[in-house]
């Protein structure tokens, strides 16, 4: 059993503002079915920028529902620019705290809110991208850790624990941290320095090892069509049907993974 606060329990038992809003002024999404957590947030905003109504639909655990529910309560009546200032910590605090392993639920709430606000202002946002949390104890995301590893030149898991605090709690993320270290450590070469055969072998290798499974478990798939200079032509099939920017996200995911593992000058082109 998780150690949930009374407020968390109250909100998952009787969540407030469940549902969708027809003709919503803004819609934000975070997470995915494959991740086990997904939140869709609908906002009704009046001409002065005040959030008149907020509704949510959540696929997730008790604390995910509670985070979504309390978030809608927090933002109704706020100006959209005020709502923008809400942090994931404030969501968790409003719930009387969340267990460390469940902090990502408040992050998801925050991300959906960010996405909705971006949608309101007509900005483009990677709505399906989820900041991957590596260390749930110290609450460090993959991007944060990669940045720190690169900037501080960290070489071992012990370095990461000492310098960033990640991995200093339960220790369950040590494997993930050592993968990040490997990722950073990899020597990068330019595409032009490889023969076409080498390029194809390397790309197919990375697709099989790091990309295809990720897509397939979400119902999608990928096929390498051609390589020309630094351009990699692929056929992509996504499954995040409800997610309008899914294909964009997918393309970035493939591109970033190929860049990380092979060469920073790779450009992915969908055919």
């Amino acid at each position, binding site marked *: 059993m998780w150690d949930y606060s009374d407020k968390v329990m109250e909100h*998952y*038992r009787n*969540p407030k503002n*469940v*549902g*969708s809003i027809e003709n919503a002024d803004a819609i934000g*999404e975070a997470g995915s*079915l*494959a991740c*086990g*957590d*997904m*939140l*869709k947030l609908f906002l009704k905003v009046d001409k002065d920028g005040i959030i008149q109504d907020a509704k949510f*639909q*959540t*696929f*997730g*655990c*008790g604390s*995910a*529902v509670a985070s979504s529910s309390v978030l809608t309560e927090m933002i109704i009546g706020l100006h959209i620019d005020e709502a923008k200032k809400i942090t994931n910590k404030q969501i968790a605090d409003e719930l009387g705290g969340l267990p460390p*392993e469940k902090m990502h639920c408040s992050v998801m709430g925050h991300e959906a809110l960010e996405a909705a606000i971006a949608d309101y202002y007509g900005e483009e946002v990677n709505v399906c991208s989820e900041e991957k949390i590596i260390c749930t104890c110290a609450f460090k995301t993959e991007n944060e850790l990669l940045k720190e590893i690169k900037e501080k030149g960290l070489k071992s898991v012990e370095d990461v624990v000492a310098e960033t605090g990640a991995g200093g709690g339960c220790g*369950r993320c040590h494997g993930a941290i050592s993968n990040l270290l490997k990722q950073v450590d990899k020597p990068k070469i330019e595409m032009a320095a490889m023969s076409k055969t080498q390029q194809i072998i390397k790309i197919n290798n990375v697709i099989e090892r790091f990309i295809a499974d990720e897509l397939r*478990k*979400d*119902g999608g798939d990928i096929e390498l069509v051609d390589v020309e200079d630094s351009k990699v032509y692929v056929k992509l099939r996504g499954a995040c049907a*409800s997610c309008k920017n899914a294909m964009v996200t997918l393309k970035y995911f493939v591109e970033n993974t190929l860049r990380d593992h092979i060469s920073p000058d790779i450009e992915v082109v969908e055919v």
Partner: protein
Amino acid sequence: MDTIYLDNNATTMVDPQVVDAMTPYFSQYYGNPSSMHDFGGKVSLKLKEAREQVKEFFGASLASEIIFTASGSESANMAIRGVLEANKKQKHIITTKIEHPCVLNVYKTLEKEGYRVTYLSVDSDGSLDFQELEDSVCDDTVLVSIMYANNETGIIFPVEKLAEIVKRKNPKTKFFVDAVQAAGKIKLDVKNTKIDLMGISGHKIHAPKGVGALYIKKGTIVMPLVIGGHQERGKRAGTENVPYIIGLGKACELANAALNDEETRVKRLRDKLESGIIKSIPNARLNAAVDERVPNTTNIGFQYIEGELILLHMSDAGICASSGSACTSGSLEPSHVLRAMGVPFTALHGSIRFSLSRFTTEKEIDYVLEKLPQIIRKLNNLSPFQKELKALGAI
């Protein structure tokens, strides 16, 4: 409200008859079975009786083939480590991808120590490929360890046949069966099989937590994990946990007597629960639709809703079940067993295991069949996958 306990693969109620059998051995007959005096000697006789009961339960030939341990995990650790210690030259082990974490984690540690481990896959029915097993066994294979029944799905592996395949290829390879989830649900009968070691846990068969047993076929060398006194014929030092061992003996006797009830009444209730849920809840999906299952277990995926939320709402209605293995519920990863079976992501995170016992009643099943559809309907309304749920007819 009364608790409706459908989580018997996690742990079971201690049978009151087991408690009665144990009670005198705390403050009344507390002698040490190793003592010379008659006061301890009487306890020693009672211990002997318990070993007989457990031997009968395993269907073993000799009482000396039974070692008492503190848990199913200890039984597994003793079997695995003990066999490896006794055969240090060989470095290859075979197991399956869907073993209990207590076994899988031992292998992960052994890999770091330089062992080569083959993890056999399962198909969507949860079945093993016999050919893959046969092909994996080589001269270097010291141990094959395969569970009898899976804790999450209840699927039974044909361990006797698997042991024969292994021995045919390499007669020296030892075969260990983790029978924790099969014990008390189907008849164990190690005699006349090629199985060398088999482990059980007390608290899954209505004995208390903190006691288990390991069957070691005569002639199988197992090095001890705990070294000290001569207890358990030197295989496990430490003064015997007398009351608990007596409790385990009694529980084994009662479990064997109740096997018929498991195979008939409990199975009928399980089937009623299973078909009732599938019929009344359109987004429910049976995760292990195979006949070869222990009679008390069913695993059902509720598509487009999340398992923990279902459990919390069931708990509010007084119904206890679990999602995946209780040992993994502290983590956020979906079940490794269901993943290995290729259960789709739509149902993976919403999979619930119901496990009955001989104490489950028809009234309890009826109550669950009345309450669960209401809970699922409520939770379906929360889901962002309204279109998909509508297509299934769930909302």
